[in-house]
């Protein structure tokens, strides 16, 4: 199947269609809405299901194989976050705060995107490595921590320079400022690590690991069989919210629109190639790519509003949810699947290594 055929067949899955439906419902100003309680519960449910599934798989395959992909993912995530920052700040002329906020939004991962990816693979009859759920959990805070740390550094430096030049305040006050920044950083770190997404995901992985296939049986109907239907319901609401944000896209500007499409494509394909190089399966490489391609639109605001309040959420939420998410699940997922199929079937790993060396 060629790439257009794959995109088209992906378009015709309930998940994608109901997402598009949600967008349309919002555009025609329908009052359709999934009640808040349901749309707050569904991500928790999805993460629990992903975690249990991953944990059970890890029990079968062991931890060792996880190490390299984990480190690779962390490395790439940090690298990409820095890269995003440079692009946004220098080429996009965004201010310091918006640049770091956007950089980490795209450096972080989207759990909903991950769910859709799993369903996509299921649909293609392809499996992926269970430990990728753990990579998802670990990757979630990494980009934020980096961005917050760098923002705080930059702000402290600015403050110091400014105050010194004013000559108005004593050393001790600067010290206080830095301490405050550190406290703030520590607090944000705590918040981002105890955030519900990570907690339920890690918890479920561990529980999945402990109970195994057998223990899972009694709850598999809820946490496995209902999975795709639950995503469908959640994506109606995501579509509605994305649709409501479409008006804001104008405010986002052409540069950020282009960034929201090109950057994930780049990150995702690099991800697929690296994953293939380090030995992940066809499906695993797609999910690995998706982790890097995805942007965070649920966890991001919660963390960034406290950590970098100066940044405009209308920028990072709109681009992540309104542009990148639809693009990822409709277009990029099939593209990455194609790329992964090619590099997995044609022994092109050598070629890839070659490309990668050129890149780094």
């Amino acid at each position, binding site marked *: 199947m060629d790439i257009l055929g794959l995109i088209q067949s992906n378009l015709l899955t309930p998940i994608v269609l109901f997402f598009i439906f949600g967008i349309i419902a919002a555009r025609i100003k329908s009052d359709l*809405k999934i009640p*808040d309680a349901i*749309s*707050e519960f569904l991500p928790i449910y999805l993460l629990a299901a992903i975690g249990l599934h991953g944990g059970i798989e890890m029990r079968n395959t062991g931890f060792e194989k996880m190490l390299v992909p984990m480190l690779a993912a962390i490395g790439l995530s940090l690298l990409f976050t820095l890269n995003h920052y440079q692009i946004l700040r220098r080429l996009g002329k965004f201010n310091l705060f918006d640049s770091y906020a956007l950089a980490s939004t795209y450096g972080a991962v989207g759990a909903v995107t991950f769910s859709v990816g799993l369903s996509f693979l299921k649909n293609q009859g392809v499996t992926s490595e269970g430990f990728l759920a753990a990579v998802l959990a670990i990757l979630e805070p990494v980009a934020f921590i980096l961005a917050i740390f760098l923002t705080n550094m930059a702000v402290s430096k600015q403050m110091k320079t400014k105050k010194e030049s004013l000559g108005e305040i004593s050393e001790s006050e600067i010290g206080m400022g830095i301490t405050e920044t550190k406290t703030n950083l520590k607090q944000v770190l705590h918040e981002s690590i105890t955030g519900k997404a990570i907690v339920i995901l890690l918890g479920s992985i561990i529980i999945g690991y402990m109970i195994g296939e057998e223990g899972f049986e009694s709850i598999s109907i809820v946490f496995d069989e209902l999975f795709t239907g639950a995503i469908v319901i959640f994506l109606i609401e995501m579509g*509605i*919210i994305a649709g*409501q*944000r479409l008006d804001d896209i104008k405010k986002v500007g052409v540069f950020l629109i282009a960034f929201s499409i090109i950057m994930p494509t780049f990150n995702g394909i690099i991800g697929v190639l690296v994953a293939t190089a380090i030995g992940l399966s066809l499906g695993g490489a797609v999910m690995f790519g998706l982790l890097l391609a995805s942007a965070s*639109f*649920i966890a991001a*605001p*919660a963390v960034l*509003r*406290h950590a970098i*309040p*100066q940044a405009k959420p209308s920028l990072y*939420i709109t681009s992540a949810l309104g542009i990148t998410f639809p693009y990822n699940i409709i277009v990029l997922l099939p593209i990455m699947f194609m790329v992964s199929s090619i590099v997995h079937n044609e022994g092109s790993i050598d070629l890839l290594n070659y490309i990668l060396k050129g890149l780094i």
Partner: protein
Amino acid sequence: MKLYNVKLLTVTCEILAQKNVIDILAKHHISGYTTYEVEGNGARGLRGQGLKNEKNVKVEVIMQEDKLQDVIEEIARTLFTNFAIVLYVGDVGVLRTEKFV
């Protein structure tokens, strides 16, 4: 029963600023408050339709007049620039002033 005059401070802000407001109250040793989720419209546009994080919250604080100035000054200074927020103060009468420091 005699009603004693105190102030009712109401802060309507985005939900992610709630913690900041309550921290400011705590800093001024005010532990009593009431909160609830609301929706709204203002300078930062319609809020409350989509994700939970996009909602607003109201924080209501009954307090003595003497602390009012410090609290609203700190809220204004630290939160007005970056957050969707509105603040107003009214007069109310209460029965037990000792509850509201």
